């Protein structure tokens, strides 16, 4: 007769990781909404003269400000990948061991074929999620680079100047704008799948995935604890 499962609380997400997550979420939401408006401005009141309103300028201002927040938040997280606990480190994002690749296959089976969880899933990011976040990091930086490359010529921003090389590399600003806009949809898809999978894994693993990003604690069965 199987003995009942005893769970232990494990502090997985340190404060900087949780802060990063929610600041990032907020920044992405802000950037996404304002970005869509900038790409396709809606018609507000045409009754007033241009000198009496500035709403589109304000939307752009919010977008640029959120862009700074997004980038620096990202950079802090990159640093924390070297300074944080074992669950925050870059080694959990990049699969190197055979076990890591086995876990990726296992998680794919759980997610796509919906088989029950059998093997052990990493208590931090599962190995598939980690890999996807790792790839996502490059897309984050792509978005920041193209964003600042577009922003640079309109400001005195040093970051804009640092990203100026992106424009000749990609051909022209029209191309940079095209891809910067297209990548917006990556975030939309990412958020949909990410949020859903958090809920799904919370259910199939039963380890408190969703609430862990608020409090930092996850739950692990005692018989699986020895790592």
């Amino acid at each position: 007769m199987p003995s009942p499962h005893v769970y232990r609380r494990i502090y997985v997400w340190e404060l900087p990781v949780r802060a990063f997550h929610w600041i990032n979420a907020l920044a992405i939401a802000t950037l996404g909404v304002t970005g869509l408006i900038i790409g396709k401005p809606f018609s507000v009141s045409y009754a007033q003269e241009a000198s009496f309103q500035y709403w589109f300028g304000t939307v752009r201002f919010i977008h640029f400000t959120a862009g700074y927040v997004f980038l620096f938040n990202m950079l802090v997280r990159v640093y924390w990948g070297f300074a944080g606990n074992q669950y925050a480190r870059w080694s959990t994002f990049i699969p190197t061991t055979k076990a890591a690749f086995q876990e990726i296959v296992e998680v794919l089976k759980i997610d796509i074929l919906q088989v029950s969880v059998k093997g052990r899933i990493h208590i931090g990011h599962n190995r598939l999620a980690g890999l996807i976040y790792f790839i996502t990091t490059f897309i984050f930086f792509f978005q920041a680079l193209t964003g600042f490359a577009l922003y640079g010529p309109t400001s005195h921003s040093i970051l804009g100047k640092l990203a100026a090389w992106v424009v000749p590399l990609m051909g022209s600003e029209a191309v940079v704008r095209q891809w910067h806009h297209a990548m917006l949809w990556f975030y939309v898809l990412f958020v949909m799948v990410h949020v859903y999978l958090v809920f799904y894994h919370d259910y199939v693993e039963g380890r408190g995935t969703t609430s862990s990003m608020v409090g930092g604690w996850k739950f692990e069965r005692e018989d699986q604890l020895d790592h």
Partner: protein
Amino acid sequence: MSGGKHTLWEVMREKGYSRRDFMQFCSFAAAAAGLGPNASAAVAKAFEKKARPPVIWLHFQECTCCSESFIRASHPIVADVLLDAISLDYTETLQAAAGHQAEKCKSDTLKAYAGKYILLVEGSVPTKADGVYCTIGGRTAEDILQEAAAGAAAIVAWGNCASYGCVQNAKPNPTGATPIHELISKPVINVPGCPPIADVMVGVVTHILMFGRIPDLDDQGRPKEFYSRRVHDTCYRRPNYDAGLFVETFDDDNARKGFCLYKMGCRGPVTYNACSVTKWNQGTSYPIQSGHGCIGCSENKFWDNGPFYRHLPSFPGFGIESTADSVGVTLGAVAAVGVAAHAISTNIRKRKLIHDQVAEDVKNTPENEKVDR
């Protein structure tokens, strides 16, 4: 053509221009090159003392709109004099000589003024099929270009063709049209535009003549004084953009009021040129002032970023009607359906799993109590 022996002042005097005309021209030239009011004395000095450098103007894959633009420079003397200020030793469109005579004229200049002449290039160079798509006098464009570039003191690429390849270089680029800076290892002054603004062209040439060196260039080889600002940032309709006042269709009331053409596909926000400052045709107007959006003709690959009347270009690989938004919405819908299907399937399975789990817990109840929590 007198081959660079005289100074500009000498040539003007010969033609009967007064000193006043000359000084007026110098002030204009200083302004055209983006210099301050005090610079006209230095300009006058340069034009009095420096011998005119001979100029070779080559024409390859182009439509001659750059030449047409150049001869319409706004100052009346410029049209007359600048073509004399430079000793234009070879240009197919304007020269009197033809055939072997013209070719000889060019090769004489290349030899006699090696390292001193200015090379102006109009048009891109085809590189596919050994360059057969553009030959002059039995020689390929690339061959002619390389020969002329070898001894040039300065090389200017006129227009989008020579700077970026323009329409010949648009996908699928059947002739392998190549911008000249990709073929030449020397620095090339790119003066993009289709055509470039006449006064900008004059400004660039004047700068070289006056200072004997090429102007400050940006990272794409464009003179900073003319190409450092976006059409959008100097546009007189810009306040409407910040206020969110947009033309929705070309025949609406907003268009009549002169609102921003952003939603009509205006490329002003991604185009670097002096149009909204210098304007065209003696400073009369420019496309946006005439109610039409900028098409970005001074930008690399502007033909491949169409359609011109839509803000978002077509998304590569998804056809002319697609945009990043239409592709994104489709993918988003697919993802939403996938997530919903997954959630439904999970919930169906959940019943059985919860049932089993509860059964297990019930079975384990006695042991459960013994576990030290």
